[in-house]
């Protein structure tokens, strides 16, 4: 079986698994039930996703949170394709958080399009089938003789045609067809999927309309600012808020005890005022004593010392062991060793964390920029002792996610404050400094690599000891060492092990979790290995990848199937390596300052060539980057794919130059006036080609 087929199989299985994980009901049943819920007031609302308007425009509901990844165009594009309407006739509406109705709603793990590809096509086809059935009844014509195009039903035999709007009321009374009966389009006939589609919110963004969580305005709303301890996890011992409370406009100070995510709860004070600026300024008038409880002992220096000690011994836990790596290294003609380290970094979303909440008559309504709202809903319910049915979450547009908003601490804080002020809506905004302090950071870490080369310069052994962060010997979010790490997965002798350090710095997933450090570290080391044998990195990569084959990754226990590591196809990996070499004209003797990198992450194979120069000022300038990618599926929206590639290259450079680094001393994230210094904008990335995959 090809890995394409395996992936397709995985995807189908994943769909069932995710739906099973979301509740007792299987998805197709839930889906049908959702489709059947029609609002009596809007007769043209056919399903949970599709509403036909009187002017024959179509309102399509977008189920997942939009963080700038373009999902608000992509998922509705899938529906519109099978509904058979022109994209110009589509209006997009954001769904509320309601997993019973929409299935899983999260922006993470690069899962939105793989998980929703088929369900969204089916959602479009469902509404189309209902319209066609209604037309067949009205015209007394067999369904098989009817076709659709551009928002119209056509009966070629009789020459009859009608816009969807004319049939919508009748269609809404039709039963929802069973998923198995739906006939989907031949992909060769796609007219929306694969075409450049601008973001549905772009005109509103350009006009400065209120779209984001921070823009939420409610009548009678008050504003909340937060003060938490400099040392993460410190306990609030005592405070005096009398000066703050005496300031004009300040209404209240609420004590927040151990609130936040379950593994990173913090104490804090919320200042409530008529204006957020007043509330935030009033923090300066608070007198607070914190109990650090020994957490100030953690620092970058203590981490580096612990890593050094760990590297002198064996890893605390084995992750992967193949062959006899020790013997292979001992017998090697040459051994290359290197250590790599990388810092903790912050997500630094440009929109600070915020959330608006209203607690009224025992019900809680929330407006949240959250990437994983259902987890937030459960966390709020648990923390506040409310029934989940008493909580409604409205999804706002999100001013940057990068994984930060997979955590819902702001939702818990806002809900706790709102419950303290029944009937009054409260908007909580983190000050930039609090936003840095309260991040869930991309873990720092340290690698100790060894590679053994035989007399012919062939790499025959690989060892990696990762010193990472977590608790109880288990790595934290995004801090793991995967057992199928390349090149361990292609070598006969390979040894992966890790040692997990504990600290008070909570960890979170950041864009391409784990991969974002592993790619840099392993590819950097392999580049050194290649240099030691007089080769360039892509030549070594092609040697290591060898013949085209599919390597299955070991299953990770306790992880849902859709988050299990996908199989690794060495042929597709070699394909992108060769493609990058070709488009950048790599040649036998690449110019000085030209670099190469390859990685497989989240179903995508990518290879990159970068041309760099060092100026007289010591600054590294990246003059050009070539990217070759194979995502194993259709590019739904090339306009967005281009943005994601360019953005990820710039983000990656931001990581490498440590622009988002948060130094840690005395158990504190050093945040004072930190500018999220991003990559130099003079870097010009010209996307050379966005390769669609060759057949496996």
């Amino acid at each position, binding site marked *: 079986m090809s890995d394409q087929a395996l992936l397709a199989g995985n995807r189908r299985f994943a769909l069932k698994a995710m739906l099973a994980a979301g509740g007792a009901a299987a998805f197709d049943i839930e889906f049908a039930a959702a489709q059947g819920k029609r609002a009596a007031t809007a007769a043209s609302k056919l399903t949970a996703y599709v509403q036909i308007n009187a002017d024959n425009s179509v309102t399509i509901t977008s189920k997942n949170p939009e963080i700038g990844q373009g999902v608000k165009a992509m998922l509705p594009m899938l529906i519109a394709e099978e509904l058979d309407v022109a994209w110009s006739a589509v209006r997009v509406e954001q769904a509320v958080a309601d997993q019973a109705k929409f299935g899983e709603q999260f922006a993470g793990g690069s899962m939105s399009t793989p998980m929703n590809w088929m369900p969204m096509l089916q959602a479009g086809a469902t509404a189309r089938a209902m319209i066609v059935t209604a037309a067949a009844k009205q015209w007394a014509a067999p369904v098989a003789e009817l076709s659709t195009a551009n928002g119209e039903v056509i009966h070629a035999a009789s020459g009859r045609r009608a816009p969807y709007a004319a049939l919508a009321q009748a269609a809404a009374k039709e039963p929802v067809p069973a998923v198995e009966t739906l006939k989907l389009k031949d992909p060769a006939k796609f007219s929306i999927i694969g075409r450049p589609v601008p973001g549905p919110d772009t005109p509103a963004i350009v006009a400065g309309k209120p779209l984001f969580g921070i823009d939420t305005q409610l009548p009678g709303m008050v504003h909340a600012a937060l003060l938490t301890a400099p040392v993460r996890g410190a306990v609030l011992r005592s405070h005096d808020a009398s000066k703050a409370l005496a300031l004009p406009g300040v209404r209240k100070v609420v004590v927040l005890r151990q609130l936040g995510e379950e593994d990173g709860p913090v104490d804090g004070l919320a200042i409530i005022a008529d204006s957020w600026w007043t509330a935030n300024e009033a923090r300066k008038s608070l007198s607070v004593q914190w109990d650090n409880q020994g957490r100030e002992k953690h620092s970058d220096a203590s981490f580096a010392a612990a890593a050094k000690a760990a590297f002198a011994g064996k890893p605390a836990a084995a992750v992967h062991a193949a062959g006899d790596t020790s013997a292979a290294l001992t017998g090697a003609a040459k051994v290359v060793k290197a250590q790599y380290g990388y810092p903790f970094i912050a997500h630094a979303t*440009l929109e600070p964390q915020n959330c608006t909440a209203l607690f009224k008559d025992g019900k809680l309504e929330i407006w949240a920029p959250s990437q994983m709202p259902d987890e937030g809903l459960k966390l709020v319910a648990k923390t506040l002792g409310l029934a989940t049915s008493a909580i409604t979450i409205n999804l706002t547009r999100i001013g940057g996610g990068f994984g930060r908003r997979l955590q819902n601490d702001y939702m818990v804080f806002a809900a706790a404050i709102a419950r303290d002020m029944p009937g009054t809506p409260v908007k909580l905004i983190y000050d930039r400094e609090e936003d840095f302090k309260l991040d869930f950071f991309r873990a720092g870490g340290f690698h100790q690599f060894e590679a053994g080369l035989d007399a012919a310069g062939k790499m025959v052994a690989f060892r990696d000891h990762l010193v990472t962060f977590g608790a109880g010997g288990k790595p934290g979010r995004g801090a793991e060492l995967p057992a199928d790490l390349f090149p361990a997965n292609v070598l006969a002798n390979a040894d992966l092990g890790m040692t997990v350090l504990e600290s008070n710095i909570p960890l979170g997933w950041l864009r391409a979790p784990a991969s974002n450090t592993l790619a840099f570290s392993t590819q950097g080391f392999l580049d050194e290995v290649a240099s030691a044998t007089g080769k360039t990195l892509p030549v070594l990569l092609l040697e290591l990848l060898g013949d085209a084959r599919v390597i299955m990754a070991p299953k990770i226990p306790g992880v849902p199937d859709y988050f299990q590591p996908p199989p690794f196809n060495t042929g597709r990996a070699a394909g992108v390596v060769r493609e990058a070499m070709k488009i950048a004209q790599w040649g036998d003797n690449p110019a000085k300052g030209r670099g190469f990198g390859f990685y497989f992450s989240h179903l995508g194979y990518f290879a990159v060539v970068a041309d760099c120069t060092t100026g007289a000022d010591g600054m590294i300038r990246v003059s050009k980057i070539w990217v070759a990618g194979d995502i194993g599926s259709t590019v739904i929206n090339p306009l967005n794919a281009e943005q994601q590639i360019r953005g990820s290259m710039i983000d990656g450079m931001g990581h490498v130059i440590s622009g988002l680094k948060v130094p840690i001393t005395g158990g504190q994230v050093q945040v004072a006036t930190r500018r999220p210094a991003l990559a130099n904008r003079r870097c010009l990335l010209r996307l050379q080609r966005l390769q669609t995959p060759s057949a496996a």
Partner: protein
Amino acid sequence: MKTVLKVNGQSREVDVPADKPLLWVLREDLGYVGPKFGCGQGLCGACTVLMDGQAIRACLTTLDTVGTAAITTIEGVAATPVGEKVSAAWIDLDVPQCGYCQAGQIMSAVALLETNPTPKDDEIDAAMAGNLCRCGTYHRIRDAIVKASGRKAAGGANV
């Protein structure tokens, strides 16, 4: 402090502390939520508005320093000829990703084109250096400014 502000061609009275930053006056007291709060320290540019045509950081500009100056926010910028061109170019090239920084980017772009109608690439980079985009939309920002200036783009979208 009772103050009459000129915002997007309209006179608006507010009664708030003299040291309240213009950003929060606009967002909280006048309902212009287009200018965004990013850092509160004048470092990210998300709050950029025009004061008598000049791009300023509204998060650091206190109310008492505004006086009778004309303030233009993203909500009103498309009413000016340059603002209209810039907004149209932004939509044509689909510049935003998350979109949070874009109001500030557009205001800085308008201020640039008002003083330098045909900026070169390095002049664009220099003028826009104070506006961060965490998603990395810099290429399309530059392309949109070039487009709004009427100059033919050298690079640009090539998918």
